[in-house]
């Protein structure tokens, strides 16, 4: 365990150093958080003709989408692309020779970037929340902790889902496309295209039990104060169930995939 910790520290330091090298890159990554604001603009345009939509006013939408920038950056990951690259270029073979699971290499890369994002993005969003009357995150101590928990769950969920899809790379060359399909379809039910409150109750019920909400809509709704405690508990349990399902799927596919990999060759 201590060895793993040491490995992580070393990997994290190296990744952070590497990330810091790319000053301009960081700047651009920050700028590319634009799309949530694009969607927000459409809602605001809609609002200019109706005072409220489904009980949401201007402040609700602005808070939601500004919060989305934060949540997106904190729970998102490009783990799948990392794995896929590795599998196709033979980097996986090199990693398999090391005494630790390749997963640790990939995740430490993501965590390195996350650390940077936390340092840069969180203050900006908090600053916006403090300065702008439109952006309000009605959190108390308890809901803040829950929010952070939901974020962590969201990140873990994104990670295990990405790993599961990545494992398909042992059998298919089209993993990136399949992942895009899955992810893209999910954007309707995660709260990305529109806050889930905008959908009819039937659609909302479905969205509440699917995994998509776990990494976006759920933490976001906690942040913007739209959830009551029973809802929050339900969401956390849903998260845990989906994390478990995907984790098991991931490990099963990993074992099967490795066997195939070693039989067939890189």
């Amino acid at each position, binding site marked *: 365990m201590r060895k793993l910790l040491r490995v992580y520290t070393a990997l994290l*330091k190296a990744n*952070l*150093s590497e990330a*810091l*090298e790319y*000053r301009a890159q960081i700047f651009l990554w920050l700028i590319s958080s634009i799309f949530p604001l694009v969607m927000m603009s459409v809602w605001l345009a809609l609002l200019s003709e109706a005072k409220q939509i489904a009980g949401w006013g201007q402040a609700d939408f602005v808070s939601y989408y500004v919060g989305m920038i934060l949540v997106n950056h904190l729970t998102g990951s490009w783990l799948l692309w990392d794995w896929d690259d590795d599998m196709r270029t033979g980097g996986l073979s090199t990693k398999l020779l090391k005494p630790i699971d390749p997963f640790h290499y990939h995740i430490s890369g993501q965590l390195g970037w996350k650390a940077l994002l936390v340092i840069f993005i969180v203050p900006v969003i908090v600053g916006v929340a403090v300065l702008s009357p439109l952006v309000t995150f009605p959190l108390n101590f308890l809901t803040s902790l829950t929010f952070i928990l939901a974020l962590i769950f969201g990140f873990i969920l994104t990670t295990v889902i990405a790993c599961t899809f990545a494992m398909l790379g042992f059998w298919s060359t089209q993993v990136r496309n399949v992942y895009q399909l899955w992810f893209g379809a999910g954007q309707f039910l995660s709260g990305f295209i529109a806050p889930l409150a905008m959908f009819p109750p039937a659609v909302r019920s479905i969205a509440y039990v699917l995994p998509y909400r776990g990494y976006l809509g759920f933490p976001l709704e906690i942040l913007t104060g739209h959830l009551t405690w029973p809802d929050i508990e339900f969401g956390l349990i849903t998260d845990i169930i989906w994390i478990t399902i995907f984790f098991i799927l991931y490990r099963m596919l990993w074992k099967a995939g490795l066997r195939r990999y070693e039989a067939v060759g890189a």
Partner: protein
Amino acid sequence: MSIQVESLTKHFRVHQKEPGLAGSIRSFVRRRYETVRAVDDITFEIAQGEVVGFLGPNGAGKTTTLKCLSGLLYPTSGTVQVLGYTPAKRDPDYLGQFTLVMGQRNQLMWDLPAIETFLVNQAIYDVPEAEFRETLDELVALLDLEPLLKKQVRKLSLGERMRCELAASLLHRPRMIFLDEPTLGLDITAQQAIRTFIREYNQRTNATVLLTSHYMADVTALAKRILVIEHGKLRYDGDLQALIEQRAPYRLLRLTLDHAVDSADLNALGTIESRDGLEVTLRVPRGSTRDAAARALSTLPVEDVAIEDPAVEDIIREVFEMGEVNA
């Protein structure tokens, strides 16, 4: 003179990166720059048809010089004239008359057979069909490319790829050939094939060949004349053989002994260059190497013997220590 270089100087500004996390944060906030003098006041002239080798350790300035001749770099000061053109102006007429091949850097398209890249180059250099076919046939014969033409480039071995690279770069019959570390990473057979080819090509077409390498063997096989560049400065410009004989009028006798032997016995044969347990290296004057070896075998408990030329690095290092040398 085909190539005239006068007082060529090239400086670069390079960003300094400090190691460790603290260093990274510091360089994130403020970058530090240093000026590197890649080429420092070099002057030489080369006639058409010569094969000239640029020798020197890594980072000495050989590649930078070649890039200045190719028009890829603008000199900081000094002048460069090749075939009457100023390379840095990159006149299309000039570009069609030379070729640059960099070892371990591909211009061949990876997923297609080499022949496809040849056709692309034909279009790029506007080579008429008849001339292209003739040149291609010649190159295929000289480089033994027939079995390779239809294979995907990524499936070729390093040596095969290099031969195809050379062919691709010569389809437009350039008068000036710049080779930057062409045999880097190749095995002995491949290296020899490349050297043989270059020599033949130069004899057939009278193209000028400039070759940089840090392998002595490349240069001994091909170039009568060498330019030694170290730390950006030209240390020697002249005949290779003359340099070797002048600077290193000796050869090395490597002996593996059965059991330890008195230094006096070894000194009788030659100067002791190094001694590592039972491995002894002696310096022996050039003419008397065979005699010395024979005497070693008869008078000493020798298990194994080898006769070698001194390493280029050693010769060159001595050249540097002596300062500039006139041929």
